[in-house]
């Protein structure tokens, strides 16, 4: 039987498998919808003014009134505490120029700095006319923080690695001690390399098709502009799918564990890698960066894929594009080589 006919049969088998469609299509689409719902308010809007309460006849009233980004209201301490606890104001300025707060935060720190500055102008001994409050000391550039985008890229990276399930399925069905189909296959003269190639090709075709469908839904239906560099992104996904299938083959090689448990282990393993790459928010990535543990995500293929996708699409940075492709190809080559070496010349006393 030629390799393409075998590929066709294998694709047909997977096509009829509910589990395959759930994992590679329904689950990612459900998660994408969920992420969109959950993150729709997450992007920071315009900078909001800071609301502050001030004691009646406070000496700083006039100066603070002049500051653009502070909204000031005269009130008693009791009212202020109540409003602070409800989150309506950030602080309260007492008559002795002290600041009363109910929590630490950026708004409170800015207020502290402003009051400090006003006090220090008076107490520095420098003539007031020498202060130039309009002077431009800073040239400002903007780089938007968009950590929520990482969720989506991490999700897409996770989907790209779902070829792992096809790999496990293939290995389990090919091992004579685990599956009757494997026993039949072992007794047939069909080449293992051809069978492996057909399986990989079949899995690749189906996974890529579902990946493209999900990207299309994200771009066309959900109208999220995540892929400004579509071509290079697809290149990455192609290689990642191959690596995912290879990883599945390696896990499938584990002896004495049935396919179901291998799938369970893979689900948890992939979620773990995806969590490190930012699936549950980028805070875990940041913790790794801050604790000099960047090597964890340097070795984590999902994190490499996630990082490279947002770098090329959001930041226009191609610095590690080829390194990521090289790394993913390297992983895939190692996985496929080990698989082939493990499968060759294997014999069973009885099947």
């Amino acid at each position, binding site marked *: 039987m030629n390799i393409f006919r075998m590929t066709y049969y294998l694709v047909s088998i997977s096509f009829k498998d509910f589990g395959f469609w759930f994992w590679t299509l329904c689950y990612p689409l459900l998660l994408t919808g969920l992420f969109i719902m959950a993150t729709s308010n997450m992007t920071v809007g315009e900078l909001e003014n800071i609301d502050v309460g001030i004691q009646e006849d406070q000496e700083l009233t006039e100066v603070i009134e002049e500051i653009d980004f502070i909204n000031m209201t005269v009130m008693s301490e009791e009212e202020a505490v109540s409003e602070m606890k409800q989150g309506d104001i950030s602080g309260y300025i007492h008559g002795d*120029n002290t600041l009363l707060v109910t929590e630490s935060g950026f708004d409170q720190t800015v207020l502290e700095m402003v009051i400090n500055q006003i006090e220090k102008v008076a107490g520095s001994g420098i003539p007031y006319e020498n202060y130039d409050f309009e002077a431009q000391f800073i040239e400002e550039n903007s780089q938007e923080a968009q950590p929520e985008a990482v969720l989506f890229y991490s999700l897409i990276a996770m989907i790209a690695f779902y070829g792992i399930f096809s790999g496990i399925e293939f290995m389990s069905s090919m091992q004579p001690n685990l599956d009757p189909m494997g026993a039949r296959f072992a007794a047939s003269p069909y080449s293992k390399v051809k069978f492996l190639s057909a399986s990989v090709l079949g899995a690749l075709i189906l996974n890529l098709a579902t990946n493209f469908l999900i990207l299309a839904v994200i771009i066309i239906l959900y109208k999220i502009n995540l892929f400004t560099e579509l071509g290079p992104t697809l290149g990455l996904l192609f290689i990642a799918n191959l690596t995912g299938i290879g990883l599945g083959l390696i896990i499938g090689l584990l002896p004495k564990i049935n396919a179901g448990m291998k799938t369970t282990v893979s689900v948890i393993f992939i979620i*773990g890698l995806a969590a490190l790459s930012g699936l549950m928010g980028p805070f875990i990535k940041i913790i790794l960066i801050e604790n000099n543990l960047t090597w964890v995500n340097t070795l984590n293929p999902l994190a490499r894929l996630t990082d490279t996708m947002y770098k090329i699409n959001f930041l226009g940075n191609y610095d590690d594009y080829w390194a990521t492709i090289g790394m993913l190809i390297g992983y895939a080559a190692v996985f496929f080589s080990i698989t082939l070496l493990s499968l060759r010349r294997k014999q069973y006393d009885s099947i």
Partner: protein
Amino acid sequence: MTVFKGILLHFWKYRILIVILLSAFFIFAVMFSLGNSSENYTSESLRIDIIDNSRSEISRGLIDYLDENNEVTVSNEENPDIEALEEKIFLNAIDGFITIPEDAESRFTSGSPVVETTADQRSTQHLQMQTAIRQYFTFLKADFDTTGELHTDAVTELLSDSIDVEIHESVDVEAQSNFEYMRNYTNFAGYWIMLFLLILVGNIMSEFNSPELKQRINVSPMKTSTFMSQMILSQIVFGLFVVAFMFFGALALRMDSLSGVPLGKMFTALLLITAFTLSIHYVIAAFTTNKFIINGLANFIAIGMAFLSGIMIPFEVMGQTAQNIAQYLPLYHFTQIYAEPDITWGEAAFPMLVTVLYTVAFLIIGMILENKRKTSS
């Protein structure tokens, strides 16, 4: 207790896997809630990277001043990696970066912009960074215009001596920060317990429910009620083990920082979410023994609820639709059992009741499906 022991032996078969996964996700949960407790008001520090091309008196002064209250990283490299810094802002790993050009001193004296900043201009952190830099240069320039000399140390000293900021006496800062830590930890532990139990119990029980074993159980003289009670008991024992691992693990880590934390309510919440998870598992098991479906449903239910209940991202920043949906999710009510450090049992009773009702509802659905399956087979 044959069934009870049999199921526990099934769990025992995967003991190494269970311990590895428990440990891995315990570490995740700890990472999820990293933070330090403080006893007083602390100014919010910014995470700033500074590229100092000037290496002058002015740049040293600015760095010293910002370093007093912020986490400053200085780079003196010839060709700094700007794109890496922009990526850090994109990820929120830093609040911004400052570039001090070579000719900073001449720019300062001539009145041109002295430094270049890059930050997300929509954030309060940007405002704080601008205020700090502007404040420093305003005082330095005023002093320079008055004396004709640069007194960077004096300006830093002058500005470092800040006004008094008081936390209102009704607020216990230490308890609040202890509580924040444990709340984040318990939130994540709740999600993790759901995922772990649904996947592991689901898969192990699907092995136990294999046709060969089922047939043996059917022909055995054991009553269905005895069988069911032993099965549920074994799952509860396993659930308690997982809860104990996650809860007491956190207590051991935070032994000195537990004041103000409603530990009783957190433990109760974890027990209730375990019971709820086992009831969902009961429904899934009555509905299918297909491991793909079990894994898929477990994953989607756990991660879906975690996102919509404000565990992965703060509830306040979620969209209105998501917030409305959250009110109907048991994991949201799980988080409400310990929502405040000083929450009373009376206040926690309602979310506890909702979680219990969800558990009962799923148990009933499970029983109906189970009976239907038995009748049809």
